[in-house]
């Protein structure tokens, strides 16, 4: 490798003192490599010979073996998943639970937008938590041409709080009320679309 050539150069060109400086560094380097090789050897269960080259060989073999094992296992898992009879909590139930929790804590759905500075807005949305609602929110943001510079999402008692500092990507200065309106409408459509999806799911 390149190291060796460098070494030779050092030996040829430099004076004795440089040689000794390099010697220490070289020793340390070799020590580091040898320590690591030792660690590698300790990890690999099947070792044939005990020299440097074979430990690399054995490591390669072992890695391949492990990869094969993990692949077999994951295929097995997929198979089992396909034939699984475990019941997954149906979505409707989830939503019902979420709604119930929210009511209990008195959390209301909400959309609030405030203008920070010119193009920047702070958006706060509280929505009922369901599968994929975060994705829908992000889609909404994208649609409005907002770039999220700072995002925070937390969930609590079946509700999701989305708060984000955004700025308008397209340079439009949308009015606050306008944004709030758009967002509320989007959320409503989100809700109805999911409702119909559930019903569709139920009838199937």
């Amino acid at each position, binding site marked *: 490798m390149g190291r060796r050539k460098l070494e030779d150069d050092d030996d040829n060109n430099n004076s004795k003192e440089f040689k000794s400086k390099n010697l220490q560094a070289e020793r340390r380097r070799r020590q580091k490599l040898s320590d690591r090789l030792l660690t590698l050897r300790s990890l690999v269960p099947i070792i044939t010979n005990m020299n440097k080259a074979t430990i690399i060989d054995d490591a390669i073999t*072992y890695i391949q073996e492990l990869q094969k094992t993990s692949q077999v296992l994951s295929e097995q898992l997929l198979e*089992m998943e396909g034939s699984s009879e475990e019941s*997954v909590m149906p979505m409707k139930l989830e939503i019902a639970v979420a709604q119930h929790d929210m009511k209990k804590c008195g959390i209301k759905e909400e959309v609030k937008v405030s203008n920070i500075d010119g193009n920047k807005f702070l958006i706060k949305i509280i929505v009922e938590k369901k599968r994929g609602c975060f994705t829908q929110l992000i889609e909404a943001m994208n649609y409005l041409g907002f770039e999220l510079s700072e995002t925070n999402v937390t969930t609590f008692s079946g509700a999701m709080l989305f708060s984000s500092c955004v700025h308008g990507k397209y340079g439009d200065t949308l009015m606050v009320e306008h944004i709030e309106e758009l967002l509320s409408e989007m959320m409503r459509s989100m809700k109805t679309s999911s409702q119909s999806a559930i019903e569709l799911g139920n009838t199937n």
Partner: protein
Amino acid sequence: MKVYEESGCFDPHSLTDCQELMGLPGATPTNCHNSLEDTLNVSSYNHHHHEDASAALDMEPHQHYLLDNTTNNNSHLIPYLTQDLPYDQSHWESFNVVPSSTSPEAAAAAAAAGAYTPTPDLLGLFHLPRCSFLPNPSISFETTPGSPSVVYDPLFHLNLPPQPPVFRELLQSLPHGYTVPADDKDAAGIGGLYHDGDNGIIQFTRDISMAGRAKDRDKAGKTTKHFATERERRVHLNDKYQALRTMVPSPTKNDRASIVGDAIDYIKELLGTVRELQLLVDKKRCGQDRSKRLKTEDAASAADAGDVEFKSLGDPDQCYNTSLRSSWLQRKSKDSEVDVRIVDDEVTIKLVQRKKINCLLFVSRLLDELQLDLLHVAGGNIGDYYSFLFNTKIYEGSSVYACAIANKLIDVVDRQYAAAPPTSSTSL
């Protein structure tokens, strides 16, 4: 001693030099074709009989040069050499002198091997037929007189069934890549590199080489004749390191120490993944068995009250698998970094991505796909990067595992990154 010209490939012409060099007192060109056995047996080389490494003279380097080369045959050496060297068939024809050897063995072997020399590789140049020591596969080479011999069998570790001598020869003369079919750890290209007589070679050269010589580096004390084997050995070793590097998912620096370091980390990661998968499989199997059992119990409930009880007593399905799943993986690519930690059913994902497009959408889509329930997300733009932290929970019934998450995530992010048109930095 002639200076061995170091070139990237073996020059057939140089072999004539070697032959001359190997010209032993009273040797004819046929000496080169003698089996090592023969040379060992020849009385005039008594000192070689002892394998006295320190008395390394002309013969020894050649011995192990021969050995080295002959046993190198299955190695990557061939492709690498055949690439570089426009070998000339005519040349090594001339090397196929029928050995006027003393032992019929050698003759037979050489003859048999001679049939194989016209393989398109440089083995002929190295006088492969001389690996006719193979018929006696337990040639031993000792570093010090009287020390227990290292039985050198280049094909030993392939775990082949005992072969007749000629077949061994055959194997030796096979060009690279044609490993024995039984060997399933096989080779496509680099893979087959190390499943060769390397073990034997390296050991052997080390043994036979001059005592007191530094392990890897040869300083002034090295004779020029060692160039060949030493260089080959180094190249061989370097190729192995590279092979190791290619197996690791996110290799970092290209020097030996970090390659080994990456390999260590990767092995640990693989062990964790295997353990995790095993756990998941067990849990799933447990769950399936339990639900099956419940079904059969339901079916047979009324009449077999006693049976049910009995069943639940000796319940083989009882999962003593109360162990908590925990795993941690990292994946790095050029522009992004993913860190996935799973404890039981909670997954924490950290994502750092160079700012170009906001891939939050794609990431959240992927998380939905993976059946991960978002509990908490935090992140945003930091300087040149986007950094996010996702706390999620695995939905009941899904058996997703850390490795899959990490790989898919980095894949999605990289793809989006690649697909996005290069935007100007002032994209506001």
